[in-house]
């Protein structure tokens, strides 16, 4: 799931300088889970915008605006309100914002910062475990990604900064386990420490060049 966090209202209002009529687009999937772009969050934001002197021409909370075709269809019914607007404010992730900028010929402003691809540990608790690097390596760690869970993305073991099983970027307020201690314990549990001993080659970053694309062949 894509994790987003709403920008401070002052920053949102500043980004809308000179644009008084605003149409909002939210997302009922990821952004709703993050309380940034579902119906409730979008309506709350509308109230704040009104207090700041903005005129809201309308809003749409779409089921995954990252889906360009469906979003195009869903926004058709809001044509009049969109036409009246000076800018579109997106309460979903950056990908959704760009679906909308592809569809609507109006300036698009993000209301949120897009943080990471997160796992939901429990309601409202998001943790990053995958960097979408293009070539999954968790086979040799028996299931823990060192690219993401290690602050330095190391592939061959812990650095000298590991302290009592914690990462060197760990603080009391934000404790971070050393990914390589976790990997060591996991491999040991499954009697696979031999995998730790293999030197992993430098990662092939050409497996994921931005902007990436994937086009599937149509199934017959």
């Amino acid at each position, binding site marked *: 799931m894509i994790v987003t966090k709403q920008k401070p209202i002052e920053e949102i209002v500043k980004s809308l300088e000179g644009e008084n009529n605003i149409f909002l687009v939210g997302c009922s999937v990821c952004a709703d889970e993050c309380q940034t772009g579902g119906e409730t969050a979008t309506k709350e934001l509308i109230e704040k915008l009104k207090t700041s002197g903005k005129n809201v021409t309308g809003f749409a909370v779409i089921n995954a605006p990252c889906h360009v075709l469906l979003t195009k269809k869903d926004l058709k019914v809001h044509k009049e309100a969109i036409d009246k607007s000076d800018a579109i404010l997106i309460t979903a992730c950056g990908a959704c914002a760009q679906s909308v900028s592809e569809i609507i010929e109006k300036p698009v402003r993000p209301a949120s910062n897009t943080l990471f691809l997160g796992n939901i540990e429990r309601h409202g608790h998001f943790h990053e475990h995958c960097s979408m690097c293009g070539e999954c390596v968790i086979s040799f760690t028996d299931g823990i990604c060192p690219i993401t869970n290690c*602050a*330095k*993305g*190391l*592939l*061959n*073991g*812990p*650095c*000298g*900064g*590991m*302290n*009592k*099983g914690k990462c*060197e*970027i760990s603080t009391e307020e934000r404790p971070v386990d050393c990914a*390589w*201690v976790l*990997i*060591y314990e996991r491999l040991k549990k499954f009697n696979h*420490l031999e995998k*730790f*001993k293999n*030197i*992993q*080659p*430098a*990662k092939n*970053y050409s497996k994921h060049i931005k902007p990436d694309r994937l086009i599937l062949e149509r199934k017959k």
Partner: protein
Amino acid sequence: MNTLKNALETDKFIITAEAGPPKGTDVQEMLHSTSLLKEKVDAVNVTDNQSSVMRLGSLGASKLILEHGLDPIYQLTCRDRNRLAIQSDLLSAHVLGIRNVLALTGDHTQAGDHKQAKPVFDIESVQLLQVISTLNRGMDMNGNLLKGKTEFTMGATVTPEADPIEPQILKFEKKVKAGAQFFQTQAVYDTKKMEEFMETARHFPVKIIGGILLLKSAKMARFLNKFVPGIRVPDELINELEKSEKPLETGIQIAARQINEFRSICDGVHVMAIGMEDKVPLILEKAGI
């Protein structure tokens, strides 16, 4: 100027010290303290943006130290450079006459004075050792032939008091496999811990140079215990510093004592004085070196 290589090839007790390049272009102090080490050490480590604090580069500083008649150990971290820059800098180091490299992953940018920087870590210490081995064989890391190979002596680091120690030992073994010829350890204050580590390390054909870090005060010792991973200053030493009227002198005595303790255990000592490099000759003198 290849005193480290010569020392590694004999049974000589190896002595290395550290030079921290300045934050700026005034190199006088660094060169003054390193010149005091002439004839006293086998090589001088030149730190690479230590603790992720931006400073004069280790490549330039290594060259200066070489010109001043000492054998530099060019510390190279993976934090600030991708694999192209790393290999290119290694070739530059070689043509400038630098022959020793200490392969390091590097502290995270969060530790330093440019926290907003994008950390690189395109490769890491084990892979860096492999890259240097490959350059020494006349190829780049993709197997392309070089017009003139390098001849580097390769070093790496290990933390004998890491907690837990097992993953650190596994990585140590990988560094040996990747080509490390010598290791400089994180500072160790507990001789027994060093002995325990040496029982494992002795099984590998590498030289182990024990880390000695000058304690300047009890406050500094407590700071190390709290903030520096893998360093443990025992309470007895903290008390000794606390009771002392001249803690720096006591720290120098402790360092000299440790050097003598390490003499029969490891292959050498690496003396780190962090900002008090001019005290290193005195430490060595007190240790009878």
